[in-house]
């Protein structure tokens, strides 16, 4: 009996070790062909999975789109890449992370493939620069523009067209209430609507002036801040020389951040952690007249099932602004991601097959129809695309005015320090914009110095 017990113990041990080995090796049946794409958890990932059904029908290769919540998206794929994992064949990664991935060899270089397939001619040049190129201007590409995105605006047409609102606004500001023609104009509108009675059906609901990002856990606060910095004539620095002093703390940058701080006063309470969810939720709850969000989240606002004001919702791109030097500038912060082939993938041939299929004009048109934001130049220009959704014309304009954050491998450290110092002023009200930007400039210069860019 004891012997039998011991034998069964040994057998169990061997079985367990075998199971662990089989699980760890992760071998799949040889006949099953599939690729795994890693992207953030949001609607475009669902659209991509749906779109890829066409690829599966053509080739028999299954496409799995693995989604990770935004809060841990970048951390997760960085950790996997550090471990040289072959869990994913394609990563649809953040645009600012392209430098890190390229320098550390996690993404395959696609320069020859892009030129051979003519992607550099069929996709918009700006999208290729910001989603695929590193270093900028170096004509070396590591991604295919997948989801073009930028910050844009949604507004309540019914409130903007209300005769009493129009009359009161004209009387107070001396010009007509309408889609803002400048950032100054936009702030006037936010101030006008902030705590204005009679704007909601439910009198117990307080009404506020605007919904903008306040969260600084990842890049939301930084993305809003950078577009006002650029629009007011400031800069984040020189992307080729890494010079920041005199640019990040310039007059234009200071004015941009001061503007952000002023505008933030018109948001609903508790907006210090507002990102895309709160931006949309406050709008659909009917407590703000306008919201700033990435275009990727606007399908929810044009859908009557998710937005009771869908019929009365209009869209506009980030407005222009006359800077301190009298020059008018118009910029929008870039969102979106490019699709890159993972160096450690064991199915790179299948991944390239998928990319071949994805860059086709027909696929890009279908991508746009499903709700994805194409960067294919012809599709963007087409009437079908412009009329497909009410926000598409504003998206097209945004694709012409976007600009991106630093794309060097140290971008996350820059992002963290910037978010911390700017949030202290914009959200927390500590110190001044100049002090915050000077502090950030010193920290950034130290980061670049440590990384060896000034050697």
């Amino acid at each position, binding site marked *: 009996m004891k012997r039998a017990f*011991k034998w069964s113990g040994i057998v169990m041990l061997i079985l367990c*070790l075998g199971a662990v080995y089989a699980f760890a090796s992760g071998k799949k049946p040889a006949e099953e062909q599939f690729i795994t794409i890693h992207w953030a958890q949001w609607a475009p990932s669902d659209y991509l999975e749906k779109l890829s059904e066409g690829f599966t029908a053509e080739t028999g290769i299954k496409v799995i789109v693995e989604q990770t919540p935004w809060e841990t998206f970048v951390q997760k794929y*960085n950790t996997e890449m550090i471990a040289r994992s072959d869990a994913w064949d394609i990563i649809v990664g953040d645009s600012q992370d392209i430098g890190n991935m390229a320098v*550390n060899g996690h993404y395959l270089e696609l320069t020859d493939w892009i030129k051979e397939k003519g992607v550099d001619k069929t996709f918009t040049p700006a999208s290729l620069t910001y989603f695929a190129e590193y270093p900028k201007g170096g004509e070396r590409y590591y991604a295919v523009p997948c989801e073009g995105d930028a910050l844009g605006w949604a507004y309540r047409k019914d409130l903007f067209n209300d005769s009493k609102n129009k009359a009161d606004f004209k009387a107070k500001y001396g010009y007509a209430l309408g889609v803002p023609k400048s950032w100054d104009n936009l702030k006037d509108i936010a101030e006008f609507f902030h705590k204005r009675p009679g704007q909601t059906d439910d009198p117990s609901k307080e009404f506020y002036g605007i919904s903008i990002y306040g*969260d*600084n856990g990842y890049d939301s606060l930084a993305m809003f801040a950078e577009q006002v910095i650029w629009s007011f004539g400031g800069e984040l620095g020189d992307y080729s020389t890494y010079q920041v002093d005199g640019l990040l703390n310039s007059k234009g940058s200071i004015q941009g951040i001061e503007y952000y701080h002023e505008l933030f006063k018109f948001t609903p309470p508790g907006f*210090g952690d507002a990102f895309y969810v709160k931006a949309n939720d406050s709008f659909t709850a009917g407590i703000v007249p306008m919201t700033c969000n990435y275009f990727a989240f606007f399908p929810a606002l044009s859908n009557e099932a998710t937005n009771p004001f869908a019929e009365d919702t209009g869209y506009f791109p980030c407005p222009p602004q006359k800077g301190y030097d009298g020059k008018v500038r118009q910029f929008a912060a870039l969102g979106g991601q490019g699709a890159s082939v993972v160096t450690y993938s064991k199915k790179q041939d299948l991944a390239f097959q998928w990319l071949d299929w994805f860059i086709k004009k027909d696929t890009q048109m279908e991508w746009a129809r499903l709700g994805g934001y194409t960067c294919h130049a012809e599709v963007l220009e087409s009437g079908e695309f412009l009329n497909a959704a009410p926000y598409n014309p504003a998206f097209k304009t945004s694709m012409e005015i976007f600009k991106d954050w630093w794309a060097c491998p140290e971008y996350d450290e820059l992002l963290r320090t910037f978010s911390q110092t700017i949030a202290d002023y914009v959200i927390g009200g500590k110190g001044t914009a100049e002090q915050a930007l000077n502090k950030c400039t010193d920290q950034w210069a130290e980061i670049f110095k440590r990384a060896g860019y000034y050697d």
Partner: protein
Amino acid sequence: MLVRYEYIEFLRGNSMQKTKQERSPDIESHYRRMKDKTLMRLFILPTLVLLISINVFPLVWSLFLSFSQYSAKMVNVWGKNPEMIGVANYRQILSDPEMWVKFITTAKYVIMSVAGEMILGFGLALLLQLNFRGKGLVTTLLVLPMTMSPVIVGLMWKLFYDPNWGMFNFLLGLGRIDWIQDPARNLYSIVIADIWMWTPFVMLLSLAGLGAVPKYLYEAAEIDRASWWFKFSRITLPMISPILMLALIFRIIEAFKIFDLPMGITGRGAMAPPLLAMHLYNVSFVTWNTSIGSSLGYIMLVMVVAITLILVKYLNKAKQ
């Protein structure tokens, strides 16, 4: 034991019958001892390998990294990444005034939450000593918070605290107070959630301790007409102080490295309370400054070990 010996011999290809016949009892005994040890080592080996690879090695490796400049995100180039820089990371951390704010905030958090849990937990345990109808149900309900996942508790309290639609302000009639993003309040919001979650833990340990106090001590005190306070301070408290000290040690260690609750309630943004574990996460996995993260991890480890040693000393005294 003989069965194990036979089994090993069997594995070696010797038939059991033959072995029994050929070996003298002395040799058998010798083999039996040897093989017992071999078998023991075989069984321990997988655990040992796992322990060394996922526990000991990272500990040693991170200690090495704490004396270097290293980012896990960048390509490993010996001499550059990692580059040995001695105690520079420790010097940088300990000379940074903002880091001291984090140490102080964490200390405040530990003191407030653990004190709250100890007082409430022990108080509830004393109340549960009384006999009343539904005592079992009440005890079970009180224990529920600690059975939940801390992340879920964090997210749940985040909803409670929301200034626009949260129940917390509504129930207390506080208006639209921002408990999550206001730096003047959000530390307290995490303390409240932590007390809510972990008071039952102290309560359970206290209940166990109270149940173990011999009844005859109280009976003897009753005969001497001792007051309630006398019985509490001279019998109850001394008898259960070792178990209370144990609860204190567990809670201090846990509270010192709190991460999941604040991550759920305030997130890891700039407005979140500057707690050490949150900062450690940001440094190590957001900005990928692995070497600074390793140094900070070791500083925290030394602090926790030091506090624990002091408390264990008191625990031993209490036991005596």
